[in-house]
């Protein structure tokens, strides 16, 4: 038996609730939560979908660190008390469900799409990209937008910032050999809540479930954008 201690929120008050979950070999935290929902208390709300760590729905704080519940083995936590809370730095809607509209709006602000004016919708033509060029940005395409990085960023604790995920998305496109849109992304990166808010606590890289190293992307993107910004001043 394992104790799941969950921080709950019903819209007005926050409280802790404990459940006893029977532990089976190989059981994940998500399976534990589903056991609670289907057998003990079906009012518990939490996001989940793919259960194979590709959709990013189930990011939550488990024993103090943000993880994907579906790929966290209860046994690997080496404790018979599992503390589960919603992600930090996000507004809680209910129980473990947090507000993600803002997170996705920030992603949208960096123009995270291939920008190029010589492509045709009606008659598309293959763009050439060597395996080396693909490797230069591929790791950064694996971002699930799970929110774990944003939840541990100390800068995000006191201010609504662009955040590691959004800046990593910008970098992913700036490093894609097919993209021609770096200029269009510079302003949002250099904005008040952009790359300058990073002070390299690098906690984001520590918790990323896909080991993308957002901290690296932010520094590299900062440098790229800053160089463009400086050039602009002189060309003015």
């Amino acid at each position, binding site marked *: 038996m394992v104790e799941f201690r969950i921080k709950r929120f019903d819209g007005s008050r926050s409280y802790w609730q404990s459940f006893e979950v029977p532990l089976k070999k190989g059981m994940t935290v998500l399976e534990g939560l589903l056991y609670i929902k289907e057998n003990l208390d079906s009012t518990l709300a939490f996001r989940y979908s793919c259960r194979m760590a590709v959709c990013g729905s189930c990011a939550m704080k488990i024993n103090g660190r943000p993880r994907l519940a579906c790929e966290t083995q209860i046994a690997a936590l080496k404790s018979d008390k599992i503390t589960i809370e919603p992600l930090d730095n996000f507004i809680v809607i209910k129980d473990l469900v947090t507000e993600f509209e803002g997170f996705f709006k920030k992603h949208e602000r960096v123009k995270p799409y291939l920008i190029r004016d010589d492509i045709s919708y009606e008659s*598309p033509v293959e763009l050439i990209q060597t395996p080396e060029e693909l490797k230069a940005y591929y790791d950064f395409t694996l971002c699930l937008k799970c929110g774990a990085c944003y939840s541990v960023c100390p800068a995000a604790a006191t201010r609504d910032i662009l955040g590691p995920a959004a800046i990593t998305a910008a970098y992913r496109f700036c490093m894609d050999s097919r993209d021609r849109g770096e200029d269009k992304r510079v302003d949002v990166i250099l904005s008040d809540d952009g790359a300058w808010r990073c002070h390299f606590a690098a906690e984001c890289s520590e918790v990323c479930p896909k080991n993308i190293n957002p901290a690296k992307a932010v520094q590299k993107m900062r440098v790229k954008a800053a160089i463009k910004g400086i050039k602009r001043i002189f060309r003015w």
Partner: protein
Amino acid sequence: MSMKVQHDIVIVGAGLAGMRAAIAAAEKSNKLSIAIIAKTYPIRCHSVCAEGGTAAVLREDDSFDLHAWDTIKGSDFLADQDAVEFFVREMPKEILRLDNWGCPWSRREDGRIAQRAFGGHSVNRTVFAADRTGFHEVHTLYERMLMYDNVERYNEYFMTNLVIEDGTVKGVSAIELKTGELVFFEAKAVILATGGAGRLYGFTTYSYQVTGDGMAIAYRCGVPLKDMEFFQFHPTGLVPSGILISEAARGEGGHLKNKLGERFMAKYAPKMMEIAPRDIVARAMWREILEGRGFESEHGPYIALDLTHLGEEKINERLPLIRDAAIKFVGIDPVEEPIPVRPVAHYTMGGIHTNMWTETPIKGLYAAGEVACVSIHGANRLGSNSTAECLVFGRVAGERAAEYAMNAKDNHIPDSFVKEEETRIYDKLLGHSGDESPYQIKRELNETMDKNVWIFRDEKGLKEAVKKIRELKERYKNVEVRDTSKRFNMDLQSTIEIGYMLDLAEVVATGALLRTESRGAHYRIDYPYRDDKNWLKHTLAYYTSEGPVFDYTPVKITKWQPVERKY
């Protein structure tokens, strides 16, 4: 009174097909107001789980006729050939468009898009992005969709009903999960792209959220469902979670071995071996298990998928996700040891009856993707053809809906309907006290489907399944929704989803009982042969309150006459 929102087009479902439709409609005209509603955020859709790839004719060594023939033969000749011919000709452009929109396709040394071998395809035509193709396609489409100002996203809106009056669609009703309030979308055209119905089964590759919402609602509103008895069982599901181990593992050279160490596929498909079509491999594996040659484990029997001879470099380059999944979810590294796998419920060949232009019998209502049955997959789908279908028919649905909407008048949902839906959801379901747990009903449904409507079916088992499903439907009338609040009520959502699944299960089981032949993925032990004389036709199921009523419609044949299906 609940809120009403007006749009020209409403797309339900933000997976590959739904997002491709949104882009296509927006490209048609930037004056159209397009809403895309989904019960999860778009990038959390089930399409992200797709792994292996997307098939298209790109190079000189391939031809449209060959891709069409592979697909039609793979479908055990139940596919409508005119639709297949159209489909294969539209695919190459979709691959190139995704490339133009930033999809990180895996490349050949010369920088051109790479293609790999896949089950049932006679040429290497499966385009891929490592083994996370669905993931990358979804993110690419989502990011591209952000560019269109006239596409408005309604995230975490759970559809509860379609509004249909005089054979024309008027809109959609949905619950905004955050507040629990009902919102009524008035639309000229509606596209359903809500995906398949895999969670009918217990051992399945599907995400938890794939509960057949669009199919069930359309069915209840009088739209027929086609070929629902054809459910694909993918050969390699990871034991015990059911997580998909992509066909690419076999495409790249993996071997299937029984407990005697034999590559048993030599007995069943000597030419194609492990990359024969899925229904053939799944039946072969299940037969080995039934005849006692499977490995035993505490999670049931399994077959070994051996990748050890491929080498670490190839696995890391082409199959990184499945290596990660095997290590994380089973604790086995495929570089060192074989992975335990077993056939798993994977794809719904059946769905909402549409023609080649994604039109349903209801005016203004379109369906695309896994939720629809055109049919291009017939009785068995070839790997890497589903992501392809979503792209091609998503585009068709978007364009058709756009054309229709540009020439249609605004629609209004009558207040009487609003009141009826509010009563149905808030009075009859939310806070409904009863003595049945919806989750217990779901468990029993899964058990029945896994046992009696699985790979090998027979009359006795199917009759039992139909009887059990009817019993569960009766019990469902007494179901309890414990969560009485409106705010993000997942209890209510789950309960409604279980209701959808019960309706669909009845159609699947009854359809399987009536089809007295074996074709593609539907195999009857008591009728083990294909019967073209009596059964070369599509099953259509219509809703009545006493259960589904069946009709049949012929298969469209253009070039290829049915032959024996051997590999």
